[in-house]
């Protein structure tokens, strides 16, 4: 594979990332009610949410969504303790999580807007 093909692949991943980003953030929000308390499935819900956010952290900067990646890292930092200890979120963690999700949404909105603009300009 030639280097140009790497950039083609990067572009494809970037588009996929961008197209799924909003949905992933919404999925996280929809899970908020399941991330705390002692109900069955809390640990699994925290783990799934952690991995979903971790995926955004891991790839964001590499595909041109640096601010989104950093914001996702802030969200991940809230989740990681509960993920490792296999428990639900405490009340204060849940509050911080919501705030950081808001920040993530904002960062994603900006960068998705920029991506759409550059895509349009590029076309």
């Amino acid at each position, binding site marked *: *594979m*030639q*280097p140009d*093909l*790497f950039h083609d*692949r*990067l572009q*494809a*991943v970037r588009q*996929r*990332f961008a197209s799924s980003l909003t949905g992933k953030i919404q999925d996280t929000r929809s899970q908020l009610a399941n991330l705390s308390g002692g109900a069955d499935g809390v640990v699994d819900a925290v*783990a*799934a949410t*952690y*991995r979903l956010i*971790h*995926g955004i*952290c*891991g*790839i*964001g*900067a*590499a*595909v041109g969504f640096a601010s989104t*990646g950093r914001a996702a*890292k802030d969200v*991940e930092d809230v989740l990681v303790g509960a993920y490792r200890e296999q428990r639900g979120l405490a009340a204060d963690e849940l509050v911080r999580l919501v705030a950081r999700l808001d920040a993530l949404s904002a960062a994603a909105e900006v960068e998705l807007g920029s991506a759409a603009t550059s895509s349009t300009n590029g076309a």
Partner: protein
Amino acid sequence: MRFLVVDDSQDSCDLTEAALLAAGYTEVRTAHSAWEAFKLLDIGWPSRRDGAQADIVLLDIVMPEVDGIEACARIRSDERYADVPIIMVTSLDDVESLGNAFVTGATDYITKPVNRVELLARVRAALRLKSELERRLARERELLVFMSSWGERRASLWIDDATGLFVGEVAEAYLMATIESESAAPSAVLVLAIDGIDAFRSAHGETAARAILARVAHAVRGLAANIGVVAAAYRNGLILLVGPELAAEPARALGETLRTTVSTLDFVDSESIIPNQVTASVAVATGRIGASLDRIYLLTNAISNVRNAEAAGGDRVVAVAV
């Protein structure tokens, strides 16, 4: 070079795979879970293909069900992957997990988001390390083979396979080496011949003759070891004993003990052609090694006398002070 990229994120897998392909590596496989990786690596599956199925593994730490750390430990526990580089892919601040990863055998790590240049640098470093390790292992194996064969060659040169004693030349060398300077104490050379062994060999063959020689040699070896005398055997069946600083009378006594020991050896075997009793002639030559007495003379004198003793009927000790 065969790569396996393990990451539950399709995006991460795609980018890593593309970076490796763009760098010229052609065999890159991806797995989206540890289980899928185990299957591709043939770990815990019944087929047990020979050899490692990948030359390097890039392993994400955060994965569902079996995480990267557990996967790393599992991969390392398979001997086929003991030396295969495993590069962990992790968050920058995930120090605790990283520590555990190294405990389980990770080679190196790279942080997410993965930087393409850094990825390739780490991969090349790991492959260089692997190559160096393989080169050293190959060299060690070669050395081991060489040492082993050298040892066997040496052993075959030094040990008489019929008797298990040193070959005669070793005792001769010992004779030369241990009586280097003129010594006030006399030295002794004893030569033992099994009476009639040549005729027995002609009649019954080499194998039967070797069986007798081996039995006698075993007894001689025990006696010689007890008093610090070196025993050896010549190809023709003569057994040589060298006793530095062994005076005439103790040497003669040793000769007599040898003769008696051989004559009392039990060879009874109803299935065998070996005679019930074997006798031996022993020649003992003692003298002070010096300007007037060559150590080789002691040896040739003893050999000559043992032949004479055997010709005279055998089962006797002839002692000569030279």
